[in-house]
């Protein structure tokens, strides 16, 4: 899933400090799963804005709405009849949400309420970890099913570097050295010879480096 975290409340309050009618829009996709942008979080942010306004002696009207998904025009359409009643929208979906809203409702000001972090998953309740860099050409099968592009600090394809220490990355004791895990796993599986194969430079043309990406599936295009 796409993992996000709430923006600091102060930052959000600063963004909307001159606005009186605000619609908070949540999303039932990834951000609901990672407890940052679903119906519950929409309600919490709405209360926070109301309380802050009251404290400052300001009149404010905050609407709440959670869409099935914000990455799909079909659902974005759902707010068309009342979005114009507001001065602004705060989207607490991933970075896709505020953009789809901005594109569909160009007359409305849209603010992001969360910081989109990475593609990953929950390794424990309340702890998420990155797994995919979206490079566009998956190669995890060469590395024991683990991705050094997303998970090695230097994206080494021929690791590990000399900074691997007690299974941790040189950048932090909190970060696992993925190459340590890859090497141990491959050696245990008797697949050392695969790791000894030189991995040539990767083409980043399918990654963000190749420019903004689009995908067309002809059979699905009406």
């Amino acid at each position, binding site marked *: 899933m796409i993992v996000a975290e709430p923006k600091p409340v102060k930052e959000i309050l600063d963004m909307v400090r001159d606005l009186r009618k605000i619609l908070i829009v949540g999303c039932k996709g990834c951000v609901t799963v990672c407890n940052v942008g679903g119906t519950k979080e929409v309600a919490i942010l709405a209360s926070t804005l109301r309380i802050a306004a009251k404290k400052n002696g300001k009149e404010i009207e905050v609407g709440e709405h959670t869409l099935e998904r914000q990455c799909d025009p079909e659902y974005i359409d759902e707010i068309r009849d009342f979005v114009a009643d507001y001065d602004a929208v705060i989207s607490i979906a991933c970075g896709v949400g505020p953009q789809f809203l901005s594109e569909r409702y160009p007359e409305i000001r849209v603010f992001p309420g969360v910081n989109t972090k990475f593609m990953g998953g929950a390794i424990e309740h309340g702890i998420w970890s990155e797994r995919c860099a979206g490079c566009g050409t998956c190669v995890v099968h060469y590395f024991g099913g683990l991705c050094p592009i997303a998970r090695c600090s230097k*994206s*080494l394809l021929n*690791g590990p570097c000399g*900074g691997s220490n007690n299974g941790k990355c*040189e*950048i932090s004791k909190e970060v696992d050295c993925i190459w340590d895990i890859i090497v141990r796993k491959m050696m245990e599986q008797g697949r050392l010879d695969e790791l000894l194969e030189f991995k040539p430079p990767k083409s980043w043309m399918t990654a963000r480096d190749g420019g903004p990406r689009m995908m067309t599936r002809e059979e699905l295009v009406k």
Partner: protein
Amino acid sequence: MSEYKSGSNLEKVLKAGHFAFTGECGPPQGANVAHLKEKAGHLKGHVDAVNVTDNQTAVVRMSSWAASLILLEQGLEPNFQMVCRDRNRLAIQSDILGVYSNGIRNMLCLSGDHQKFGNHPEAKNVFDIDSMQLIHTAKTMRDDGKFLNGQEIDVPPELFIGAACNPFAEPFDFRVYRLAKKIAAGADFIQTQCIYNMAKFREFMKRAVDMGLHEKCYILAGVTPMKSVGMARYMSKQVPGMDVPDNLIKRLQGAGKGKVAAEGIKFAVEQIEEFKEMEGVAGVHLMAIEWEHRVPEIAEMAGVLPRPQV
């Protein structure tokens, strides 16, 4: 065709079978050319080549190619270091052509310390290719006369290609294989991480020799003399992939006030003496960090002077 790959002094010294002795010089954090020349001056005549570091520890300094050219003017042979952190494959290949065109003949290929350590931790890193691929790139450019895209190079750069090896990083059992991989990718010589744990290094070299790696590549053992107990502790705790045994720290402590540096040098000299005899070791790479002025006496004490003229 030349019998040499690059014709660098370092290559000639090693090929002639001499025990090589290389030094290191970090470029200044500024344009202080006088200071760079002064540091390099201490190394002149005492080493076969001088590594010129490339924004080491991710701290901005005068560029390694520029500092290498200044050393070249001073009559020293640079070993130009290049890291993959700050350059993509376009910049890497053009810098290789640039340094070669200006007379540089040795290059050390490194991934580079992560910028998080350095003085610009907010920077975006590159890591378009890794150190293994950098070695292979330099070799492809030299031996095949081709760029990474397969296009022919109009006068290929003939560099003596170096790589680093850290026998003390984990997983230990894989390290000798990674060395083999670097050699297969095209490394002509290796300079190891600073060695303090001699027992572990002996074991590592035994494995390397058993695999015949010393016959395919020149392995230079890395030595950094300890200046103080504080430095030893710092290296032990703070520098990733560094293995400083407690008994070395105790030995330095035992030297007494004002004598720790001398003890550090004594240990380094003992190491060099052992490396001269160790099977598979073709030389020493002395990294006397901000201690360039002590290199002549270390070289003298270690009995590696005068340097051979090949």
